[in-house]
């Protein structure tokens, strides 16, 4: 025997389920332009049926259905695409930040513009060539000094901006790290919420998970963390095997400032050989260095934006110590060596043309034109003759100007060649960083597109669903109305 009012209950369940499905559709449409949102679907299930006892048999034909209910509201998400996208994110972050900052470094050198080192250096040699092709007039001597001062200004500027850029990158690393710590804290908090909600198996913390996924995407661009999900839907994050987020707990990454040194040999007395006995010295650079710790464990960051920044900082050290300061030291050595072998306008032996300031640093930023020469350009040792009447002997100036084409002054090549090779190397490095960035961008873009394919809201789809659920609702209401009519006949019609 069927129950009298069972049909009304079935109708009610139908109405409620279609209504809930319409709610979810509404939620989808509302979030259509939320880029972190994954579309949701209502999974409908039939409520448990039962078997009717019968008068004649053990049971009637059946089982009898009891209607419908919402079993689950599901989030449409492909976790495999997420995993790949996050992996590609590491490299995208690394190369794109590397490219941006290398371009900044290139702008400091500005070789193609008129403010490059090669341009200043050429002007400097030219002024010596002009003096060496003149009758030794004061105007040409003054031009040499002016161009030498312009050259040292340029050197100071490049040195200073290079060091400044490195410091700025340091602050940027600190900023990125603070962001990482902030993200891991937020993720741990969300972990707690999600696991609490999902401890009830019928509940899905869909929107919170979307939020957490967005944070994970951001995090993977900055550092190369690996992510795993446990059976309580918590995201556990580790960096190089050291846990950053474990369940509800986040561990902060700390910066430990250390230092690194680079030692070079400086030919102090400009005799073009390194000989400590004659007064030459080793010079040691000290640069700050970042290392990272979680608790008491050291961690290394091998990819992502922070790695990119660390790489550019190392690149700047290498560029400064082994290229820039090196070429400047060699120019000083070669020019001084020749200058001291000549005689000035008054027949006195030449003095140092370039000197380092009193700071004791043998770096490009400390190179000066000898103030005695600036005060009196006649002290430029242009001559190879000690006779003060020999005013038009400018052989030595000519010899100094020929340093620019002298092969083997630095790394077996000319100054210009050496420096342009460095500039070319930097250019090629930027080109390859750019290519890597584009590759990664395409990859990440493709994966995001794939993610959208699964998770994105399609308006057309939602509208068709809407019509479907609306019609379902209408039909359920009709069933209810029929039940009502039936009961009306039964209750009011019989009496």
């Amino acid at each position, binding site marked *: 025997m069927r129950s009298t009012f069972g049909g009304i209950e079935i109708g009610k369940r139908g109405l409620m389920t279609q209504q809930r499905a319409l709610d979810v559709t509404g939620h989808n449409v509302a979030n259509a332009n939320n880029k972190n949102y994954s579309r949701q679907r209502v999974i409908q299930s039939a409520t448990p049926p039962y078997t009717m006892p019968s008068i004649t048999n053990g049971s009637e034909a059946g089982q009898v259905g009891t209607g419908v209910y919402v079993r689950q509201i599901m989030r449409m998400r492909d976790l495999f695409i997420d995993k790949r996208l996050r992996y590609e994110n590491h490299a995208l972050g690394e190369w794109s930040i590397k490219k941006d900052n290398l371009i900044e470094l290139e702008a400091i050198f500005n070789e*193609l513009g008129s403010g490059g080192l090669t341009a200043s250096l050429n002007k400097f040699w*030219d002024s010596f*060539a002009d003096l060496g092709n003149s*009758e030794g007039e004061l105007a040409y001597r003054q031009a040499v000094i002016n161009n030498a001062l312009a050259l040292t200004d340029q050197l100071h500027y490049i040195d200073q901006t290079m060091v400044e850029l490195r410091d700025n990158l340091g602050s940027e690393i600190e900023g990125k790290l603070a962001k990482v710590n902030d993200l891991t804290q937020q993720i741990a908090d969300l972990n707690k919420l999600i696991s609490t909600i999902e401890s009830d198996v019928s509940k899905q913390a869909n929107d919170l998970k979307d939020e957490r996924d967005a944070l994970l995407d951001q995090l993977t661009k900055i550092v190369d963390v690996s992510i795993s999900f446990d059976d309580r839907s918590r995201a556990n994050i580790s960096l190089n095997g050291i846990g950053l987020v474990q369940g509800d707990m986040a561990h902060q990454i700390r910066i430990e400032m250390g230092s690194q040194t680079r030692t070079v040999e400086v030919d102090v007395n400009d005799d073009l050989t390194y000989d400590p006995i004659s007064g030459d010295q080793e010079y040691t650079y000290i640069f700050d260095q970042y290392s990272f710790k979680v608790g008491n464990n050291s961690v290394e960051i091998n990819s992502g934006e922070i790695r990119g920044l660390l790489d550019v900082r190392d690149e700047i050290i290498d560029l400064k110590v082994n290229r820039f300061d090196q070429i400047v030291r060699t120019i000083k050595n070669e020019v001084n060596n020749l200058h001291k072998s000549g005689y000035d306008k008054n027949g006195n032996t030449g003095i140092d043309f370039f000197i380092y300031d009193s700071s004791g640093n043998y770096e490009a930023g400390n190179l000066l034109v000898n103030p005695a020469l600036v005060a009196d350009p006649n002290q430029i040792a242009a001559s190879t003759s000690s006779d003060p009447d020999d005013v*038009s002997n400018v052989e030595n100036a000519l010899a100094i100007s*020929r340093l620019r084409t002298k092969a083997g002054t630095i790394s077996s090549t000319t100054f210009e060649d050496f420096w342009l090779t460095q500039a*070319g190397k*930097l250019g*090629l490095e930027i080109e390859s960083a750019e290519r890597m960035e584009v590759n990664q961008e395409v990859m990440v873009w493709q994966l995001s597109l794939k993610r959208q394919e699964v998770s994105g809201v399609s*308006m057309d789809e939602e509208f068709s669903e809407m019509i479907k659920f609306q019609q379902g609702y209408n039909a359920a209401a009709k069933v209810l109305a029929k039940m009502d009519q039936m009961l009306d006949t039964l209750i009011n019609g019989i009496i």
Partner: protein
Amino acid sequence: MTRINNNMIIMNFLENHKRSKNRQSEYLAQLTNFKKFDQISDSSLEAIKSLKLGTVITFNDSYTEKAEDGISWLSVTDQALSDVVKTLRKVRDLTVQGANDPLSQEEREKIAGQVAELRKHLIDLGNAKYADNYLFNGTKTKTEPYIEVNSALPADYINGTLSTELLKREVGENITVEISVSGQTIGFSQLFADLYNLETELISNNTAGIGAALTTIDQHVENILGVQAGVGSNHNRLELVIDRLSANKISYTEILAKTEGIDVAETITNLKSEEALYRAALAVGARIMQPTLIDFLN
């Protein structure tokens, strides 16, 4: 079948839009400065090549300048030497006249006076200047080489010591050309002393001595003409250098233009076709993004 939704269409559209805009801005940058690159990293190898070519062209220009300066020096020297020869020819005429037997003592003294005047003029020529530099004192350009005395000793005419080091101009890598001649090569001091001797012979009426002086003068003229020929050949050499440098400049500039310059017609065509593509993408985007199912539901 791929599931397509609005977000994907928009993502696709934006990506294409970005790429097209990037290409357009690249063409625009090329068209505004007519160069393929404005940072080395735009095209590293070509940029470095063009920088090196730039240096070669600057070198070329500076060598041309130096060679032109050298030509001025040599022209002035040549002119001074021509004056010397012209003056010596006059002296020779006077000597021929003085060697004539019938001349009286008085007439010979008069000729001697004229020779003395010409000798002073020659000393002035020996102290000739260009741009406030003495031509014939080597690198001691601010020291007067000769002094005006009356002496039969060549050394007496020299102010201190003559510099025999010549002025030079660098007109190529390690190629120098001498642009002055030394007073010593010309033999000015000997010439002055010889002329003084001639004056003495004229005054002392020694026709044999006067005749001998004629030979000496001829030898001097011959020597100076030889020096002048040397000046002329250096002059020619510098002119050849200039010709070569300007030919080089044309070819280097051409290579530079090929290395860093753009083909304007090609770039404009590329820009135009990119623009057409861009317009098409915009039109398609506008059509495809707008309609949804809702437009057709009542």
